[in-house]
């Protein structure tokens, strides 16, 4: 197998991957608890569905931050 490109580009690619991967992991852990709590609240009161959904997707913003960092790394740096 022939490796192309320089070491710098490789490190940028690794950094971008880590940014998305680690934020995804963090968001997943947060969403686990928030989702469980949301399901618990909905079980008791169905009218809480809309509010719960907002809280469940909130941790997703962390992944967006990671994604932005990854895009900046790859296309700007």
């Amino acid at each position, binding site marked *: 197998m022939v490796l192309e490109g320089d070491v710098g580009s490789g490190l940028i690619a690794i950094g971008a991957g880590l940014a998305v991967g680690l934020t995804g992991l963090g968001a997943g852990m947060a969403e686990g608890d928030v989702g*469980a709590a949301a399901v618990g*609240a909905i079980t008791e009161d169905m009218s809480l569905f809309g509010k719960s959904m907002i809280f469940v997707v909130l941790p997703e913003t962390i992944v967006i931050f990671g994604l932005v960092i990854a895009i900046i790394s790859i296309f700007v740096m």
Partner: protein
Amino acid sequence: MFSRSGKKGNYAYTVARVKAKKSHLLGEEDYNKMLQMSVPEISRYISESGYQKEMVDLAGRLEGIDLVEHATYVNMAKVFSSILSASQGELEVMVAAYLEKWDIWNLKVILRGKSYGLNTDAIMEDLVPAGRLGTESLEKLISLDATEDILANFGRMAKVNPQALLDAYRESGGNFGAIEDYLDKYYYARLIASIDPTSRPTKLFQEYVRKEIDVKNLETILKLKAEGIYGEDVMQYIIPGGKQIDKRLAVQLVNAETIEAAASDLSQLDFYETIRDLVESDSVSIRDVVTEMKKYEIAQAKKFSHLYPLSVVPVIDFMIHKELEVRNIRTVARGIESGLDKETIKGLLVI
């Protein structure tokens, strides 16, 4: 960070559920309204406050105060069972250990009911299947005739050592009082053992249980003193494991001949301030002292309920409040039924 295995317990889910349930509990203003009502009006009021299904189910065969009492107990049993079935891991172990008191309550009702020759239906009506043992298991226990069979089967069902139960029963010479004391002591020993006090919330829970033991022991000591019983005889009724009333203090308290004589030893207790006026008054009302101690217990539970949102603490806090709500509804209904004045009934409520 990654200690998120199933063994830890599903705190987020269970706590969200109990928080939602807690928001529906009755508040002080509800009790104030209920104090102005008659028993049928109270029935209607609680039907609109979360007890509707039970009230409708039981309305066909019960009425008045019996309907209120049974519907509240059935509702509480249902709520506690749903919490127990929702919880997992170490949370389930702690909740089950806490709810075991209802298994023990049911066993006591069955034993007493059998000894008075009540039929199955009459006994079933007084049971509160809020613990591990469901209606089927309890029906099976009621169908047994011999006390020893009931105890042995209960031991197997509730995972209590059946031999220890039978030994306690035989040693007491068939005295139900002795077996009831044994079960109470066993319940608290098992509850304390089920709590691993390595984390701050579980430590708080364990301390709460140990304070509850203190309150129960003090209640026993005061009640017996009021009857003129003191000294070593009382020690057999003391539940071990209290936080402040250890064996040394318990001996001092039981040896004091009167409540007044025990006052100086009582002053070592944290909650003495709350009962000081009642204990030092000329005529001590044990009922008032017990109510004040209950209020102290609740104040303690309230103090830590907000501290650790993802722990066993909010779950236990809700169960304490639910139990109190049922107790308060029954107190109001019973008080109104027997014509007590409103201020007296209000004094009996623990809010």
